[in-house]
């Protein structure tokens, strides 16, 4: 097993783990943090933490991907608590991420009216959804990311978030409804 080899000191096994999971972890961090720079730093922190605690992984308690996601989620929550004050003071003029060519959210919304082509339109829709996702509360956001973006099943999400499955479903429903209302509001402003 890859983890056992890594714990035994096999550097190649560790590199394989990094290659396998870096995309998933980076995406979770990016969707949760909302910023590419933060996502890169957080992903690195996740792997450092994972590397240090790899020996504590118990395969009988769950899948490795669930363990990795739990570490990621805990670190993201810690990061959110640390930067909570900064988030409160964010405005619509703040650039949400490096993937959006540093355009403020207000300009992105205004640009929705006249997309040059379908590819640009798709990209702008994604950025608007990303911005709306960032406005959700962290509880709803993490549930949506794990379910709709990472395709975890409810039981796995319940394990990661340490809440009952019913709570997971409820958060997912509330999150989706809230996101739809935010998107509706965004397009209504543009129109």
């Amino acid at each position, binding site marked *: 097993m890859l983890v056992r080899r890594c714990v035994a000191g096999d550097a190649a096994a560790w590199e394989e783990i990094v*290659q396998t999971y870096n995309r998933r972890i980076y995406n979770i961090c990016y969707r949760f943090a909302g910023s590419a720079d933060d996502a890169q730093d957080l992903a690195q922190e996740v792997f450092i933490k994972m590397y240090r605690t790899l020996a504590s992984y118990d395969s009988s308690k769950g899948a490795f991907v669930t363990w990795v996601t739990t570490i990621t989620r805990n670190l993201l929550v810690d990061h959110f608590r640390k930067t909570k004050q900064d988030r409160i003071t964010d405005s619509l003029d703040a650039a949400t991420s490096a993937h959006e060519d540093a355009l403020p959210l207000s300009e992105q919304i205004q640009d929705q009216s006249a997309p040059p082509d379908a590819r640009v339109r798709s990209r702008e829709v994604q950025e608007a959804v990303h911005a709306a996702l960032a406005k959700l509360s962290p509880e709803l956001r993490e549930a949506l990311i794990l379910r709709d973006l990472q395709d975890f099943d409810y039981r796995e999400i319940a394990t990661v978030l340490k809440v009952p499955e019913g709570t997971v479903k409820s958060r997912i429903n509330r999150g989706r409804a809230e996101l739809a209302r935010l998107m*509706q509001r965004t397009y209504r402003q543009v129109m």
Partner: protein
Amino acid sequence: MQCVEFDGLLTDALDGVLTGGQLDRFQAHSRSCSVCGPLFAEVGAGRSWLKDLTEVEPPAGLVTNILACTTGVDTQRLGVNVSAAQPRISWIAARWEGVQAWASGAMLPIWGTVRQPRFAMSFGMAFFSLSVALSVLGVKPADLRQISLRPTAIRHTYYNTQARVVRYYDNIKLVYEVQAAVRELKRNVAPAERPAGEAAPDKKDHKNDTTQQPEQKQDRNYSQNEGHLILACAPLGPSVFDQLSPDPVNPDLPVVSVTTYRRLV
């Protein structure tokens, strides 16, 4: 179907796992309920918005950075393992290397704290104060360098110090005995030299009186009892009254009772 039940089946309906009569009842409630119908539409819209989101590409240097961060830690860890796996010169050397590795790991955060400017200033001040105190006490580093740490030398120093302390207390005892003898002599000689002048030594003694007792002099006029009788006109000696009185032998003088009170100062 109740709204609570509808809410519980919302995710299953969107995932397409509802079948049969349960799906029919769900759809019927969705059409009839003014709250649950729009909610179902919103949840479905939100889900479809999120499905539009595609994965983003991680930065090109992410894997390299992660491996650099972690293999940096790995190098240290493997360094200890490699040194343990190498043929050992002796178990003491291997143990010493292990202790060194542990100490370097344990002391690293302490050393990092100590290197802060405020701690450096504190240590500098402490060193300066210590050096000043040692120079004032006459301790020289050159003397410390000459101290021999051989067991025989240490034992010799111990006995010398012990003998010096014993001699010191013996000398102190002798001094006290001489002082006591001189004091006794003075006490025996002093009354013969000054038989009449008792007041003068008393006055001197008050200076060294540590008994915290009030002076006798202060109580001189206030030490009499309240019922003590004082004659208003006592035969103190020959006076004008003696000449005027017809019968000086039996004057039959009136007695006046005087009450005195202690003056509080």
